[in-house]
């Protein structure tokens, strides 16, 4: 029905190396891109600004983290710190008079530089030790950001983002911010889709599976681990800058606390480690589930005439991230992407006419 591929196998290398060999996938992607670009004309401003825009930005961030966690197999509990460096870097660069495009690059480079420090720990240790040292670095960068007034303007301060100009045109409208974020998101997605087809991605996977075994067959684990941290931090810094400029439009140190790192980790795990589609699904679920659940709780409270203190409603996202991480790791370690994949595979062979009985 959908896929019309049952029983057909790729017969050439070119067909095998295609990004989307199934025609249905190609048209699906095209439709989604058209819808995403047209969203400002179609969606009411509330949905665009408070659901779709953060979803796209967080999916970009989740993709960047997924490169590290899913493909390279390194644990990173300090991703919010990397994003914070990107956000603050971009703001200061734009304030110093750099055009936004260059400031984004600069912020990415700055994050990548600090990200390499995380990477240096990864060269020395792995697994649990890496988790703990990235956690420690998150605390330290948090502390530095809120204690150095030159960066944050003091621990209570809020930095307003200046108006950005893209290619000379000022970006002021909701739609403009959305398209900026979407363009970056599409770029990062295209990069990630191609990572797994290049030698770089395959080397990362080899390092993920067993780094010393990879070293024996000639993959330079040292280099690829560092490169994974570099690339991931670069993209993370860019997405942090986009998050600050296009969504928050003002930055405080609290926006990049440890909880945010955990949120990003939750997105990667819930979506599925090492899956591009999964990062989008995971970001969507982790962002939207607390909102939906909040509304449900509020409804239930009104219905049953209960009085629930507001602090408890505030705890719902925490319970939810934790529950989602634990639940997905126990029940479907490959995440939402695998759930989608199962459905897709079912329909790939759907009419089952080629099955020999």
């Amino acid at each position, binding site marked *: 029905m959908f896929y019309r591929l049952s029983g057909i196998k790729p017969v050439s290398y070119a067909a095998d190396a295609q990004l989307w060999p199934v025609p249905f996938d190609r048209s699906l992607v095209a439709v989604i891109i058209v819808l995403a670009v047209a969203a400002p004309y179609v969606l009411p401003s509330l949905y665009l600004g408070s659901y779709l825009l953060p979803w796209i930005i967080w999916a970009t961030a989740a993709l960047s983290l997924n490169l590290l966690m899913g493909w390279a197999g390194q644990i990173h509990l300090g991703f919010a710190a990397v994003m914070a460096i990107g956000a603050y870097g971009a703001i200061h660069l734009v304030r110093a008079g750099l055009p936004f495009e260059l400031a984004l690059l600069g912020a990415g480079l700055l994050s990548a530089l600090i990200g390499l420090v995380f990477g240096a720990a990864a060269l020395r240790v792995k697994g649990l030790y890496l988790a*703990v040292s990235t956690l420690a670095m998150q605390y330290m960068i948090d502390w530095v950001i809120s204690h150095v007034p030159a960066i944050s303007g003091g621990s209570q301060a809020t930095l307003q983002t200046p108006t950005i100009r893209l290619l000379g045109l000022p970006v002021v409208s909701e739609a403009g911010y959305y398209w900026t974020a979407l363009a970056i998101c599409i770029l990062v997605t295209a990069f990630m889709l191609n990572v797994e087809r290049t030698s770089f991605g395959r080397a990362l996977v080899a390092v993920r599976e067993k780094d010393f075994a990879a070293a024996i067959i000639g993959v330079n684990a040292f280099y690829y681990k560092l490169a994974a941290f570099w690339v991931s931090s670069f993209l993370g810094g860019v997405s942090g800058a986009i998050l600050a400029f296009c969504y928050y439009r003002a930055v405080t140190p609290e926006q990049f606390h440890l909880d945010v790192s955990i949120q990003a980790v939750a997105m990667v795990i819930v979506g599925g480690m090492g899956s591009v589609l999964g990062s989008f699904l995971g970001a969507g679920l982790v962002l939207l589930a607390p909102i939906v659940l909040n509304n449900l709780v509020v409804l239930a409270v009104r219905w049953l005439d209960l009085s629930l203190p507001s602090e408890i409603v505030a705890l719902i996202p925490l319970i939810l991230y934790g529950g989602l991480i634990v639940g997905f790791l126990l029940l479907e370690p490959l995440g939402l992407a695998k759930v989608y994949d199962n459905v897709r595979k079912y329909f790939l062979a759907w009419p089952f006419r080629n099955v020999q009985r």
Partner: protein
Amino acid sequence: MDIAFLLELSANGILIGLMYALIALGIVLIFKSSGIANLAQGAMAMVGAYVAWALLVLAGMPLWLAIPLSLAIMFFFGTGIERVALRPMVGQPVIMVVMLTLGLEILLRGLAPAIFGTAIKRLDLGIPQAPIIVGPVLINTAYLVSGAVALGLVLLSIMFFGTRLGTVLRAVSDDQMASWSVGIFVERAIGLSWGLAGVAAAFGGILWGSVQGVDWTLSLLLIKALAIAILGGLDSIPGVLIAGVIIGVLESVVPAFLDPHVGGGTRDVVASLVILLTVILRPHGLFGREDIERV
């Protein structure tokens, strides 16, 4: 900076460090038996404190009944976590297991305040408020009692690893496959270590809860406990003791020197700094065993 003040800071720091060591003890117990690092240890301490508070205040039990009962509850809580969450993860990559315990930490950190209420709760263990004065040094009585309990527990667990059951746990930590083939119930041993970790966490949580009140911030003890466990070497219980003292002293002395210069808050980064330096200079810690990997 005069010497008496420094002495006072160090003395209280040692006692605080011993209390931190209690929570680190749980991490080490679990790592020693199953090679899993439990990032949910801080949340387990918090749950232990909440349970003790619930028994003492909500249920109105006397102290001598409430404390042992909450320890018992936490023992089964620990084994329960192992049974429900960790056992299905056998054979999964480390990254998955670490993330699972982190998920547990977040879940518990949200769940416990949601059930018991978010306001800070007072946990009164009947320890007198007046400080003890030794020469020029004031020592907080609550810290002294807690430090003594912690020291006793850590020594007890060192002795425990000399007993038959302790030998079983060490065998399991050494080689799960080999212990299985000589007739050790590996799952039961790992469950036991989780139960003991739950008890250690409960002790830590209750003692800290009596000092600073019971609320979700107790789960922040995780970072200090991790610093101690990493510095001491993840599989060494004497290491916990010594690293606990080191971290405790550093944590009270360093802010006294640095806070005036950088504007406060250095206390929170000392543990992180220790973790980083340990991982970079000597990943297996002071007393830990260096593992050699083979393809």
